[in-house]
């Protein structure tokens, strides 16, 4: 066996090494510039009692999850049972950010809809959905026009943010929370953050 004829094999094995390692990485995982930064402040109407509002600082001193959801979001249905189980265990409070409930839905033409009408529709749809699928949220807030979503850099629903006692974002999950990454990533981080404070 002459060495030069082994070169293709060698190059191929290096390539395989990278490909194999690549399998363990998620190309969709884009680092968020918000990690370890204070979560953007907001004050929004609550879904259960729309005449009341909820603000970010109300969670100060707690480790909590902010979960971005909408009834039109198909992948939310996939993660929903995971969230319901998590809520039942009481490990961590979950706040839902209902994102563009009406205008985000591709099947609805929300242009020209008055904001009050849109809000009323959003409340009806979101409550109906929680009634059907279960409500894992301590409370949900309504981001009708998606402005808070933009502040948080949401580019796909669902997304989940882990926020620490000081109101800083410590982790961002893009896409549905699966039982696996809940166990491997989220829960350990939550435990650690709780202990730290």
């Amino acid at each position, binding site marked *: 066996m002459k060495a030069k004829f082994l070169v293709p*094999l060698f190059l191929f094995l290096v390539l*395989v090494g*990278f490909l194999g390692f690549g399998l363990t990485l998620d*190309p969709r995982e884009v680092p968020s510039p918000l990690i370890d930064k204070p979560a953007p402040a907001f004050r929004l109407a609550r879904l259960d009692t729309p005449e009341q509002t909820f603000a970010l600082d109300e969670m100060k001193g707690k480790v909590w999850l902010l979960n971005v959801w909408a009834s039109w979001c198909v992948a939310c249905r996939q993660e929903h049972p995971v969230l319901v189980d998590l809520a039942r265990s009481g490990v961590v409070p979950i706040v839902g950010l209902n994102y563009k409930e009406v205008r985000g839905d*591709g*099947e609805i033409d929300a242009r020209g809809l008055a904001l009050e009408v849109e809000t009323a529709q959003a409340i009806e749809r979101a409550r109906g959905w929680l009634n059907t699928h279960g409500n894992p949220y301590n409370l949900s807030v309504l981001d009708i026009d998606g402005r808070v979503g933009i502040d948080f850099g949401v580019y796909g629903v669902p997304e989940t943010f882990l926020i620490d006692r000081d109101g800083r974002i410590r982790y961002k999950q893009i896409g549905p929370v699966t039982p696996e990454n809940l166990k491997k990533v989220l829960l350990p981080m939550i435990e650690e953050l709780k202990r730290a404070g």
Partner: protein
Amino acid sequence: MIPELGHFSLVLAFVLALVQAVVPMVGAARNNPSMMAVARPAARGQFVFVVFAFGCLTWAFMNSDFSVALAARNSHSDTPMIYRITGVWGNHEGSLLLWAMALSLWTVAVTVFSRHIPDAFLARVIGVLGCVSTGFLAFLLATSNPFSRLLPGAAEGRDLNPLLQDPGMIIHPPLLYMGYVGFAVAFAFAIAALLSGRMDAAWARWSRPWTTVAWVFLTVGIAVGSAWAYYELGWGGWWFWDPVENASFMPWLLGTALIHSLAVTEKRGAFRSWTVLLAIGAFSLSLLGTFLVRSGVITSVHAFATDPARGLFIIGLLVLVIGASLLLFAWRAPTLSGGGSFGLVSRETTLLGNNVLLAVVSASVLLGTLYPLFLDALNLGKISVGPPYFQAVFVPLMTPVVVLMMFGPYLRWKSDAAGAVARRLAPAGIASLLIGIGIAVAIGHFTWRTTLGLTLAAWVVLASLQLLGSRLRERAGASMSSRLSTIPAAWWGMWTAHFGVGIFIIGVTLVGSIDANLDVRMKAGEQIDFAGYHFVLRGVDSVPGPNYDASRATIELSREGRAVGVLQPEKRVYRAMGMPMTEAALDIGPFRDVYVSLGEQLPEGDWIVSLHRKPFISWIWAGCLLMALGGVLAVADRRYRRLAERQMPASAMQQAV
């Protein structure tokens, strides 16, 4: 019941593939004719079962059987019948089944058109194809069963991705897969040659037509995919250097090198280990393409299923198939002597030069495609590599390829006089440069890239015409028809494919330099003049389709007062997914396309309309089709048939003995 039959049939196909992989190989090693004879029936039986399984899956889609999970995910009862059928391969599992079916079809073709090939060699070829098939069927059955049931069945399906509900979907994947998988045949011939130590001119001659046919399929498949992206995505682009496009382009580049290298091996006995390596490489890149698309290692618009378990399986398959063949190569190739020697100025030199350049281009595309992955794996951050990289690498590397390509046919094998060839081609070279500069200045786009593109195109066209002229003058006394008929089809194939490259470059250069685009806001009744054309938006109507609702604009197109046509671009919302889709409308012409797509509707009721004039864009696809036609002509050459006939009695006698 029918899906279960399909599943069962797939299992049977797997078992037969295993038999096809093992028995003939052992038979060839032990020189046992009855074991070698298993190759043909096993391959044919496997084909029958794979086709039956494919038929069962198609049945589930056609009848909207939403208790089959795959159909529930990728079909809908309102989907038109043709897209229910094509929906079979519009997903991970189904497209793999199509892959397996294409492989099986190629294998059967080899069993049919191989009477002139010695039994032991054929047994090895079929055995290698059986190994590949075993791997893929195992992959299907273990990780991607297309027949999985959804119990209880869904009331309604989720519909096929609207992007895929297009005539392009009917032919693009089958053509592409026939091309991809076709390189498996070239690969199998190469491995059989390594195993038997028979890497001679005969091996190259057997392998050539198969390789060329696969290359033709791949060429047309890529061209169709590009045309589809052009009119379906609504941006008017025709190539995006997307990882999945690259995945099909890399085997094409190596395949192009391979068909030329095979020619040298057949005619001169040279480049043998290089040819074998290219055959392994072309198929490896096909497999790698499958890996990239299916594993989710790289994000792409095409990656419709991503699952690390599947990725792990394919990587195992890659290691097994490619690793084993490269090991075999390292072991056996050194025993090959170099073959015919050749001088610095000879046809071999141009072919070798282009071969190396094509391989380098292919490697650069691979590097660009995987670079984000490398950096990520080394923890150096996330980046994406875009068209600027690929253009920066591609143009300088392909320029010498195109220049050398035209020298090759003028040069004699073995050695030639540099001066004579230079004198013959100097006028064409100078004329091309003048034409390139002249046209670039005339169209007001005197940039180095446009000038280079036009010069290269002129070079290809002029040198081709000169070559044809001198070929026809060879037999000065004979009549024109007899002069034409003595030129072999293979020569016409070469000539046509090379000429096609020139046509392709014209299209690419002009679209890249003088296309015009305007995004404009229009309301019904409004008129606009753009790029020499007059557009009148008559109105936008709501039109229901079978599984979508469309807003269809009617735009009248005229030029200098004469009506040219009526364009009806649509904005569709597919009901099942709620997914919006643009359907561009085109007025296609030989020298330009007028391309109109409908954008968003503004709150006041006006529409954003995107207008394009794309000069010479059809020349891109015409060029690809000419290349493919060249391949068809080359395969149609009489000498393949003649050789087949001449050798048949000999092998029949061998069998009798």
